[in-house]
């Protein structure tokens, strides 16, 4: 074999050197990664953020049930973000708070505060695919986007609501993910995620997420006012309605510990 490979390598090297087109061409994987990196880069530097979220859960018959939560997040540049979530509705979970230190690689650190017992409980973070508060959003759907969490493949350009979109496929690195892949529509003008299709562990289409009402904050960061997740397999859906986005409110590392978890309102 060696006698064949050596001349072949030489031939290839010669071909690459003489053909500049080949040098510049990136693979679909490289292009997918580059698009995702650009999307991430465009949203870095938000510092800290606070927002209110209302969830409207709808079952197949259209019956609604409401969830209300508030979130505080702190950007951590060399790792995953820190966040504190406060539950307001339904009333029986009011006062429950959730603290999360997410990590780009490895398990997140998560604590739950249970107000009836005044108890702080460290919980396992392996549960990526489980539903968040009975909704169609799983925990991984709501966690912060980190480049290391996926591998990528650019599929095509496609017309979408805001001009042209890149369609990129993302393959979760975490074996505990509920998905084999996600197909993401990112608009070429602003690199916003307009649509995501989720494929389950059997590689069947499970859910579609559509994000609308994008607004720009601090002249840089785009956030959707409304996100709609439809589960194609169960007919259930969940709307996320965001309100009162506030950026750079002065949150610091000290606002995210077990003491703040216990007293957050």
């Amino acid at each position, binding site marked *: 074999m060696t006698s064949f490979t050596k001349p072949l390598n030489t031939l290839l090297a010669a071909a690459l050197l003489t053909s500049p087109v080949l040098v510049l061409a990136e693979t679909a994987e490289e292009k997918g990664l580059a698009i995702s990196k650009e999307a991430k880069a465009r949203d870095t530097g938000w510092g800290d953020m606070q927002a209110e979220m209302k969830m409207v859960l709808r079952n197949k018959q259209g019956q609604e049930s409401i969830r209300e939560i508030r979130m505080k997040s702190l950007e951590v540049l060399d790792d995953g973000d820190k966040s504190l979530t406060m539950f307001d509705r339904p009333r029986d979970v009011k006062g429950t708070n959730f603290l999360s230190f997410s990590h780009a690689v490895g398990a997140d*650190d998560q604590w739950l505060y249970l107000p009836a*017992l005044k108890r702080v*409980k460290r919980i396992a973070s*392996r*549960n990526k695919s*489980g539903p968040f508060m009975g909704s169609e959003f799983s925990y991984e759907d709501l966690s912060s986007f980190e480049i290391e969490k996926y591998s990528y493949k650019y599929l095509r350009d496609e017309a979408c609501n805001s001009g042209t979109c890149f369609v990129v496929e993302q393959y979760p690195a975490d074996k505990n993910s509920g998905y084999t892949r996600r197909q993401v529509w990112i608009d070429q003008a602003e690199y916003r995620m307009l649509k995501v299709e989720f494929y389950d562990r059997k590689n069947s289409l499970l859910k579609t997420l559509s994000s609308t009402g994008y607004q720009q904050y601090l002249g840089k960061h785009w956030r959707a006012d409304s996100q709609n997740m439809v589960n194609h397999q169960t007919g259930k859906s969940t709307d996320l309605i965001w309100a009162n986005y506030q950026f750079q409110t002065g949150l610091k590392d000290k606002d995210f510990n077990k003491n703040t978890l216990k*007293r957050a309102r």
Partner: protein
Amino acid sequence: MKRATLYTTLLAAAIAAQPGLAAAGLADYELAGKVTGELRYFSQDAQFSDQSQTTNLSISVEPELYWEWNNGDDSLTFTPFLRLDQHDDERSHGDIRELSWLHVSDDWELRAGLRKVFWGVTEFQHLVDVINQTDGVEDIDGEDKLGQAMINLSLVKDWGIVDLYLLPGFRERTFPGADGRLRSGLVVDTDAAQYESGAREKHLDTAIRWSHSVDVLDVGLYWFHGTNRDPILTPQLNSNGDTVLVPLYEQMDQLGVDIQATVDSWLWKFEAIHRDTVRNDYLAAQAGVEYTFYGLQDSAADLGVLVEYGWDERGTRGGQNQNDLFLGGRFTLNDAQSSELLAGISHDLDHDSTSVLVEASRRVGDNWKISLDGRFFQSDTAVDPSYALRQDDHLQLSVERYF
């Protein structure tokens, strides 16, 4: 409720003394809480005379009032609690679960008033949890606590959180009255309580605790000096010539440690205490593991499985969980109604007695929650503390309305 009036007056004075408060006009005010109706059905006749009932109806209310000012750096929480019980006069009772002022600064917090503090990691026994007295008439699981007066300074450091406690005003444990079920054979005469300390319930207790999270570990370590929350119960004749149990509250020094390691889907838990009193000097521990199977059969449901073991150096002369094995399961559907089923078995390996607990609950609509619990006891050894409960198997239906 005399106590309540005193604290309310003190609090009003404290609020009036806050200059910022009047200016802020108590703008941020919030009211929440719940009302619970509870029906118990006992499947067997009572073991002791006076325990007439086989069904018992009870209602409780626990509102929480909250005010904050100075942009949330100062806040006040008031949580009164009231229960009315159909049969047991001792279980019909009120308490102030919380009436406390919280001041938050950059790296410290000051918390003063009546409060509740929880320490620990295990599920079947809360060995290291010593700050608050158990509200024993509420339930037999020991998870209901009476508000404890305290001044608590909490310091946030890079190397963990340090909590310093001054605890004035000891609270006596509550016990079911003669008419109540789920009690010992002899009734506890709470009016005859005795103390080792000459200061009685006015002894000033102190505690210091350090807690920290490092990687997968959550660790807590504390020292407590003061009145032992667990009384020694001794049979005595009262003025009516009846034999009753008289509680004696000793002084104690206690070292406690709690550790949890959270690795993948595993939670490894360990709690231990060293308690030093005049009569006794002993070690006790509770340790176990919890594993959760996520997304059973590709559904949204989870199953958590728990195994714990309780040990007490004093053996059968001492605590209730001296050589006890605990098995539990928590099945959660993760549906919109938060339906869940909990089951636990505790088995005393010395006395060969067993108790079983099953709890099923779900939310109804936005503001209601309904639970059906069952508890079953089996014991053949008269010296076993759970022997007194062997005819108290019961089902309990609770309906909670949140507001």
